[in-house]
């Protein structure tokens, strides 16, 4: 029997292009007797699971300031931070051959082939733990009609401080049915052993995969924007970048919070109740004390928000339009600005 299989490595570090490769292989390749391993790394990005809420999972304000991309993948699971110090591995098989534990054991064998003393174990939730305490890999998967894929991360030399601050949500009062991430203590393999670089580990995993499936140990470099290799892939990448996919797919949620504004040397509490469906405001109830901002103005703001994206950019545009159409005095305008800045801050 001639064994078949492929080991692919992306030349791109764009998270959307790389996720599109996964979609493409899942949709188009016949994996019967021909499993595929895909190796990829991304420039700094936060990746949330299919059914997650980005407002609940990460600091979107910080991400906007730092130019960190946000992507939603099609598999389940929790939120992760990718940078060039993290390796992503995707194991493609038929549905019948889908076996996450088998894949993780393969990764462990590969790690031990480089460093036999390394203590890495898979857990029941398909994490990989270093020294019994530090998470170095998280897993997620997608099961389709006839094919499935299991992908996992592997921390070699990621910026852990940045990771912690990005994956900490500052947003209060969120009530949601979305799947929530479980925070974990992480560590980089490079901190344990400086020889465990991304290159070394990718090669070791490829070698172990080739040995296990009895195929050539040959990594094929692929360009995820090549339409001749992957017809239709660019439109898949484009879909993954849309606001509708990244934010609009967030399960329905509500926000019940408040913030303070300074007024005549004391603090006034402004209550906020917002319902968001498909990333758009469905119900909006901003309650400011009437003596600070007239109720008609608050009401107008509330009704204007309905149907608009829960997004600071769209909110800014909305506020500008409202300003122009509502002649009010300077004092009211400045209060309006303060209120709107606070509201944008929770988006």
């Amino acid at each position, binding site marked *: 029997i001639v064994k078949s299989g492929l080991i692919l490595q992306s030349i791109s570090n764009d998270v959307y292009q790389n996720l599109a490769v996964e979609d493409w292989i899942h949709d188009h390749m016949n994996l019967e007797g021909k499993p595929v391993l895909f190796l990829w790394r991304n420039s700094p990005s936060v990746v949330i699971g299919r059914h997650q809420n980005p407002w609940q999972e990460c600091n979107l304000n910080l991400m906007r300031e730092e130019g960190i991309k946000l992507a939603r993948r099609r598999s389940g699971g929790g939120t992760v931070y990718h940078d060039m110090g993290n390796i992503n591995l995707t194991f493609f098989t038929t549905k019948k051959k889908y076996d996450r534990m088998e894949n993780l054991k393969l990764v462990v064998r590969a790690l031990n082939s480089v460093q036999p003393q390394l203590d890495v174990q898979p857990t029941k939730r398909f994490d990989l733990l270093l020294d019994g305490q530090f998470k170095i890999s998280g897993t997620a998967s997608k099961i389709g009609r006839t094919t499935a894929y299991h992908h996992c991360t592997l921390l070699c030399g990621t910026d852990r401080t940045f990771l912690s601050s990005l994956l900490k949500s500052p947003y209060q009062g969120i009530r949601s049915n*979305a799947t929530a991430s479980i925070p974990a203590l992480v560590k980089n393999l490079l901190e344990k052993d400086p020889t465990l670089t991304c290159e070394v580990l990718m090669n070791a995993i490829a070698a172990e995969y080739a040995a296990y499936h009895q195929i050539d140990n040959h990594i094929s470099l692929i360009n995820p924007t090549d339409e001749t290799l992957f017809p239709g892939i660019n439109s898949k990448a484009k879909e993954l970048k849309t606001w509708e996919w990244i934010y609009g797919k967030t399960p329905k949620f509500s926000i019940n919070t408040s913030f303070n504004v300074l007024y005549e040397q004391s603090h006034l509490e402004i209550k906020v109740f917002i319902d968001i469906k498909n990333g758009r405001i469905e119900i909006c109830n901003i309650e400011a004390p009437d003596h600070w901002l007239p109720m008609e103005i608050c009401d107008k703001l509330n009704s204007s928000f309905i149907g608009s994206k829960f997004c600071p950019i769209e909110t800014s545009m909305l506020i500008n339009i409202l300003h122009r159409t509502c002649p009010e005095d300077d004092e009211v305008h400045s209060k309006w600005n303060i209120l709107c800045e606070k509201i944008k801050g929770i988006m």
Partner: protein
Amino acid sequence: MALRAAWRARAAACSLRAAWAPAVPCPPLPLGLRAGAARTLRTGPALLSVRKFTDKHEWITTENGIGTVGISNFAQEALGDVVYCSLPEVGTKLNKQDEFGALESVKAASELYSPLSGEVTEINEALAENPGLVNKSCYEDGKLLLEIQRIIAAVNVCRI
């Protein structure tokens, strides 16, 4: 609401009929059903409502052109604890085999495929807060689509 939905289904059926050239008097079998592969369960006094299973382990019962869809006991056991159900919006039109949603369990998102063509007119809202119903009661409280109206001319199920 039901009347409007029924009218929409009929209107869609008319435009589909023009495009669809039936060669056989009996409507085509839903995806995955092959002679001998389907199992039927009698669910009521009338023989109109039988539960049919696809080989992907979705089930469907139909009555007067209205279908109810869920997943089988085998499927829910294989999945493990369901933590999230992603279902289509009411009004979504599905073709046979279309992906209509997903179930998430222990970090795996499993796609759901429509066993028939139709318009979704009612989903099981209880699953939003209680996705575990799919495991506890996959044929009753854990049903996925409560109502999907067929967009194919024939009304009754075809005996295999």
